[in-house]
């Protein structure tokens, strides 16, 4: 018990004192995950929109396919990309393995199906009259798409939160593709796994607190804006 208490105290000290190594790990985590989300969001929204609004052969198959990808473990995604990026792999010549780029690719592969599946669900449940009303009021296709996306913005924001939360906290793909190299590819979850295995709980707890604070802040923001627009009490 006393060990746990002192670990928590040490964790607070690490965060408050501005420990360079700790904040470097946090920086890498946010840099990699934010880049991955930023690169995924537009193509994922396009796919989600096509699946929700355009009828074409194989549409149902694709919806099921992306839903299935939601349950694929991060370590399997990591393994697949590892085989592709390793020296004898399809893209081995690019020498991306154990770089932040490889981690970004892994996290994109994890976030893309979440954004597509949840984005599709939000768009699918949107009132189709929004599209028709915008069109009949003379809006062009892009303005109409903007109106529909605006109508379901909270559903899309929830998808973004879910995807960001998932990739920020995943260990498997980052460990396999990044290699957990200090100051280079060590992010929050791989650092927690490493420090805990070494018995250094303070850093793990400090990093865990950062993740919890982030999750709380993002969720609070979502509810704040929904409340501001009178959608929740």
């Amino acid at each position: 018990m006393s060990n746990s208490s002192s670990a928590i105290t040490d964790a607070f000290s690490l965060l408050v004192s501005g420990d360079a190594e700790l904040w470097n790990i946090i920086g890498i985590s946010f840099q990699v995950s934010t880049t991955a989300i930023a690169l995924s969001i537009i193509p994922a929204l396009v796919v989600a929109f096509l699946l929700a609004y355009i009828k074409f052969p194989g549409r149902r198959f694709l919806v099921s396919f992306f839903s299935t990808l939601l349950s694929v473990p991060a370590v399997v995604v990591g393994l697949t990309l590892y085989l592709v990026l390793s020296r004898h792999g399809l893209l081995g010549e690019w020498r991306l393995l154990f770089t932040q780029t490889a981690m970004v690719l892994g996290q994109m592969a994890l976030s893309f199906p979440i954004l597509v599946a949840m984005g599709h669900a939000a768009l699918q449940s949107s009132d189709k009259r929004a599209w028709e009303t915008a069109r009949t009021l003379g809006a062009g296709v892009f303005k109409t798409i903007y109106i529909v996306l605006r109508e379901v913005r909270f559903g899309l924001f929830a998808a973004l939160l879910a995807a960001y939360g998932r990739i920020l906290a995943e260990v498997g793909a980052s460990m396999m593709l990044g290699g957990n190299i200090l100051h280079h590819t060590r992010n929050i979850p791989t650092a927690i796994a490493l420090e805990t295995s070494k018995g250094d709980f303070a850093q793990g707890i400090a990093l865990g607190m950062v993740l919890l604070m982030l999750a709380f802040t993002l969720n609070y923001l979502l509810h704040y804006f929904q409340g501001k627009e009178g959608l929740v009490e």
Partner: protein
Amino acid sequence: MSSQNIQLNLSAIQKKFGHQTILRNVDLSLSGGQCKLLCGENGAGKTTLLRIAAGLEKPDNGYVNTGLGKVSWKFCRKTLQEKIVYLHQQPYMLDGTVMYNLKFSARDKQKDRRKAAIEKAMAWAGLETLASRNAKTLSGGEKQRVAIARAWLRNPLVMLLDEPTANMDTDARRRTLELMFQLKEQGLALLIATHDPMQFKKLSDACLILNNGEIKTDIDVEYTEGPVVSIHQHQVK
């Protein structure tokens, strides 16, 4: 009514959903300042016909045009969406205030003229006190007035209204009808799908009965008290 004044012309429109034929061979024309009622039982195809006329639904066969002759559906649809506004049975309010909804359809690129048009539309539809209200929280009658004012701002030639007074109280119905009278006076062509033609007796010039996928009659209104089916039976006999 001269042929040049024809704002909407549907000819030989056919539409099937699966194996069910909704519209068999429908002809309809509408001139400026004219109001026609489209009556028929549930599922008769009234809404489908309005949606085709608005360019929201593609007919399987037939032509829809606004006096341009025989044109491709793609071009025709664009023209229809420029000149015709379709109002849903339950008007859809864009997520935002009443002012936002009106701003959305105000076309003038010059800011001052756009602002003046919006203010005029608000005064016309009696929406001044509702300007800052969230449009989604309005009553059915208020939403219908916003929808009509929003459509009016587009300066259309034709307005298609699907059961515009359904589920409204007497006062809301009266105010909506007043707006529709004014639209007609301004020279707009109105096509109204309804179950209750009596409500529009003073407004309308003709009542079309849509039955079994065809328009059975296109005559001066001969209103009878009671539901629309009695009119239909009367005409068919």
